[in-house]
Each structure stands twice: as structure tokens, then as C-alpha cells.
């Protein structure tokens, strides 16, 4: 209470100084204000990621379990069908990278539902900016932190016998970024419609594991029964995990026959899908889902 007087004195002094309040002329809505809005939404994701170290650590556990426990446990069985010079852990490593991106991206989108329940979404939605800028900021924010989470996993490449080749790391980072963007866009699209946190988590949990298992993260995509073969082609994750695995294997001292046996091209009715098209599909899906999310948010309130 003793401070009350001093603050009051300070306040009186400032009163004179602030007599002319700082005039703020809020500008008209323009592309520039929208970009600024998108970038602050993006920055908020980064600040929150930075602050939540515990989440970054706990998000590592599941991918590490797959890589180290499942990878090691199954290696005796799997090694029989592996060409010499490649570990089963190396084989599943790209899938595990995708998995860590998957969890973080979905979790980041879940924060929209969380924000809605705690009211902060309202602060964003009542602002005089286009809803598109908020959704775009959110998608890129989620993509950035999911990629950062992937980078932590990427730093552990040595555990899986993957070389720290700069070119390889660059390619994998780019592919993770693409995957992270599309998955966040998917999550944001869902979060635009699902207003309850419990329901959102239940639904994503129901989707995350099938997405992962159908992506070919744990097995090569050839010689599969037709039903499974069809399902893997419908999973967007497939179109990133395939190129990621190809990148890893082609940077190992393996003969081309072994690479194409372990990382066969994704085929549509026998036609091999080029890697760039495969990645392009993922990008287009991401953009389309972001578009749906923007449309949904623009309609509310």
C-alpha cells in the first residue's frame, strides 16, 4: 500500500506529460494491414511454442518409441528382407519424421478450438482485418512450429544411421515444411467446424493413427493387397513419406536396385507418380483445405 502514494505522484507527473493523449489513427483496411495481422498470428504461435518446452519434449516421446523401440524390436525380423548395409531403423526414419510433424501440426490446429473455448478467438475474429489473414497466419504458424519439432527429430538422424548430409537435410526440411503446412490446414479446417475441444481431440485421434499407418511409414508400398494399396494412395501422408524415404535412401551407399525395392514410386494404376507431382498434390490439398477454412471462418458471426 505504501507504493500507492508514489505511483499516484508519478501518475500526476505523467498526467501533464500525457495531457495530449497519443493520437492513434487506425488506418483503412488494406493488404498491408492484412499481412501485418497474419504475421502477428504467426508470431504468436512461435512465442507459445517457445514457451512450452515441455510440449516439445513430450512430443518427441512417441516418435522415439517408434524409432528406437519398435525399430529395434522388429529389426531382427525385418532385417531378413532388407538388403545388406541398411538398418530397419533407417528405413522407418522418414516415417517417424513425418509422425512428429503430424502430431505437432494437429495439436497446433487444436489450439483454435482451445482459443474459442477461452475466448481469445473472439479477439481475433472481431478485429477489422480479413478472416483470411488470420487463417493464413495460423496455418503458417502451425507449419513453422511443426517443422521445428521435426527439426529436433532430424537432429537425431544419427540414431537411425542417416548421414548428416547438408543437401539431404535441406530436402527433408523442405518436405517436412510442406507436410506440416498441409496437416495444419487440415486441422484448421476441422477446427473451424468443431467447436468442442473434446470432440476435436477425439476426432483427430481417430484420424491420426490411420493416416500414419496407411502412409507406408513402416512398410514399402509394393506387393500389398489391393484394398491396402488403394487406401495408401488415398492417404495424403503417403505422398510426402515416399519422397522423404527416397531422399534418405538415395543418400546412402546402396545400389539403385535396393533403393527402388525399398522405396518404390507411388503408382496410380501402374503409372509411377513423379516426386514433384507427388509433392505438388500435397501442396494443392493444403491450399484447398486452407481455402475451405477461410470460407468457414468468414461465414461465422
Amino acid at each position, binding site marked *: 500500500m505504501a507504493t500507492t502514494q508514489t*505511483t499516484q505522484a508519478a*501518475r500526476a507527473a*505523467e*498526467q501533464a506529460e*500525457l495531457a495530449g*493523449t*497519443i*493520437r*492513434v*489513427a*487506425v*488506418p*483503412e*483496411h488494406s493488404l498491408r*494491414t492484412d499481412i*501485418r*495481422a497474419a*504475421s*502477428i498470428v504467426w508470431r*504468436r504461435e512461435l*512465442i*507459445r511454442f517457445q*514457451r*512450452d518446452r515441455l510440449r516439445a519434449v513430450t512430443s518427441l516421446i512417441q516418435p522415439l518409441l517408434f524409432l528406437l523401440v519398435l525399430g529395434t524390436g522388429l529389426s531382427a525380423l525385418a532385417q531378413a528382407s532388407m538388403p545388406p548395409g541398411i538398418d530397419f531403423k533407417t528405413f522407418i526414419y522418414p516415417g517417424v519424421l513425418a509422425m512428429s510433424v503430424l502430431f505437432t501440426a494437429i495439436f497446433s490446429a487444436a489450439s483454435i478450438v482451445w*482459443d474459442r473455448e*477461452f*475466448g*481469445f478467438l*473472439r*479477439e*481475433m475474429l*472481431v*478485429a*477489422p*482485418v480479413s478472416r483470411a489473414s488470420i487463417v493464413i497466419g495460423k496455418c503458417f504458424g502451425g507449419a513453422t512450429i511443426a517443422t521445428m519439432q521435426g527439426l529436433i527429430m532430424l537432429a537425431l538422424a544419427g540414431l537411425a544411421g542417416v548421414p548428416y548430409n547438408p543437401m539431404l537435410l535441406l530436402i527433408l526440411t523442405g518436405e517436412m515444411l510442406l507436410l506440416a503446412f498441409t496437416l495444419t490446414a487440415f486441422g484448421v479446417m476441422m477446427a473451424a467446424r468443431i*467447436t468442442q475441444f473434446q470432440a476435436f481431440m477425439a476426432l483427430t485421434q481417430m484420424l491420426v493413427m490411420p493416416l500414419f499407418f496407411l502412409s507406408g511409414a513402416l512398410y514399402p508400398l509394393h506387393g500389398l493387397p489391393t484394398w491396402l494399396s488403394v487406401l495408401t494412395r488415398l492417404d495424403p501422408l503417403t505422398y510426402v513419406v515416399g519422397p522423404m524415404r527416397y531422399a534418405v535412401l538415395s543418400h546412402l551407399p546402396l545400389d539403385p536396385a535396393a533403393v527402388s525395392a525399398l522405396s518404390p514410386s507411388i503408382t496410380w494404376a501402374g503409372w509411377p507418380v513423379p516426386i514433384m507431382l507427388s509433392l505438388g498434390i500435397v501442396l494443392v490439398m493444403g491450399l484447398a483445405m486452407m481455402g475451405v477454412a477461410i470460407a468457414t471462418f468468414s461465414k461465422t*458471426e
Partner: protein
Amino acid sequence: MTGHGSGGLAAQRVANGHREPAIKVAGLTKKYGEIEAVRGIDFEVPVGETFGFLGPNGAGKSTTIKMLCTLARPTSGSARVAGHEVTAERDAVRRNIGLVFQDTTLDNYLTGAQNLRFHAALYGVPPAAVEPRMRQVLEMVGLWERRDSVVMTYSGGMKRRLEIARGLLHAPHVLFLDEPTVGLDPQTRASIWEYIGELKSREDITIFLTTHYMDEAEHCDRIAIIDHGKIVAIDTPEALKASVGKDRVQIHTADDQAAIAELGREFGIEAAVHEGAVTFSVSSGEQFVPRLFAGMSVPIKSVSVSRPTLDDVFMSYTGSTIRDAEASGADQMRQMAAAFRGRR
């Protein structure tokens, strides 16, 4: 950056000294399905006034504020805020108003300063003005020293103050406060009113607030009493109290029903039970009390006489005290909430 948005208002202010009111509402209604939450209200708030909407929960206060803030579309009627039409010029209205909601809309994981910077960027506050303006509003609400603490560590009162500071950050022409002190302890409520008072002395701002606390409505220049979606009275607190012109007498008796009957028979007074006591109004309470004791056969346990308060004003215009109205309004609220959820 010569925006029409803020330029429009500036132009009106210059125009031969005749200022357009900060808020102008005509025939405004809002229906949620079958339920009419707001049934045709009209009022004007001149620039610089603190205007209060007083009524029980479910009377239509929040719905009205939502329409004025462009968060809900009126079913019919028109509303202009800060010189712009709420439906046709949504963004222009939003740029010129500050909002403090009943429920918190802060990011608990960010610091106070980060919450404000976020707001500044969304509202396009010029980057050079952000830090000085932020300091100004944070000092006004006494949170400058705590600006780098995460909001999660703030008390309820601090959060509300931070929201008020944030609502002011972009220097709005009209500040909307929806139940600014609900859920706060009496001491914090008093301090919030202190900040609002200080704010009025510093900034050229119109304040529109809703409350269901009678004592708080006294802080307003003018108040509108709203009940069942209609404005039943609108004036300064003093004028409203004077209009009642009667003292309120409450008595506790051994038999309330008998007392009510006897009051009617002996004195021609209509009394009713409110808040657990037999309540009625008479023109001069002190002089009536001796006559009361002389004329009543029902034993009286205690008696209290009070000068007209806004409670009495509310009672004389709506026929019930605000607390009674809230008890019966609760049903209606639930209905409305259900109808609202159904729409989404």
C-alpha cells in the same frame, strides 16, 4: 493512409459544431428464432457521454451490445456507431470501437505486453505509436510494472484491467464495456470504476456499458432501463430517482399476507413481498411509520425506510426488483441460450 474511416468522424466533428451522436439507434430488434431478445429500441448517445444499460440478465443488454459491436446482425432497425452503419460498414465500426467482453478474451499464455502488441497489430496501430501508447494505457490501469508477466499469473481484476487497456489501445471513439465488473470482488469493482473515471478525464471517449448492478449505474451520465427487450426509462440517474418521488418501506411481520391485506384495507396501499419483506412505496416514509404502527394489528418485527435508489426506479418501471427479475429471467435466459445454440 488518409483513411475515410477515421477521417469521416473527424469531418463530422468539424462540420459546423454539430456532432453526430456517438451512437444512434432506431427501431432495433433482434430475434433468435421465436424469441425476441430485443423488441424495437431507440436511443442516442452524444459524444463524450457515459451511457449505461441497466437491466436483469436476459433483458436484452448483451444482445444490444453485440449488435452495436457488429457481432450480431439486427433483425430489423438501424444503428450507427462512431458515424458508421453497423451492418453496411462493419470494418469501419470495428476500427473505431473498443470492446471489453463479459468473458475474458486474453491469451493466458502470453504476457500482458504481448497481448497488447497482438491487438495493436490486428488493429493496425502504426508501429511507431505502439510502444508509447501501450505504456500510456498500461499505466492508466496500473499494470505497467506487470507488463512482462504471463497473463495466467494475473488476478481476475488485473485481467479485466488489462482488457480495458487493450480495448483502449487503438484509441477508439466508443468503448463498449459488457458487464465490466461482473464476477469481481467489491474492492476490485470499485477500482475498476476508478479507472473508468480516470479514463473519462483523459481521453475524448464515449463509453457504453451494461450492468445489472444498481449501484454501478450511478456512475453513468445517463442510463436506460431495459426489461424484456424494451427500454422502459431513459434519463440521468438523478432524474430517474426523482421521478419515483417516493420512499421505499420494507417491513418484516409475523404474517406477511395478513399485513398486505391490512395495508390495503387501512391505508389503501398496494404492497407486495420482495426479497423476503413486505415492500411498498409512500411519499414520505418517516412520517408514515408512526401511523403504520398505530394502524396495524399484525405484529411488525422490523421496519426500514429508504430514499429512492435505482432499485426503486427499476421497480417502479418494471414492477419487480432487479433480483426478482433475475430469478424469473433465468428461465428465459436458458430458453434463449438453447435457441442460440440451436442456430449454430
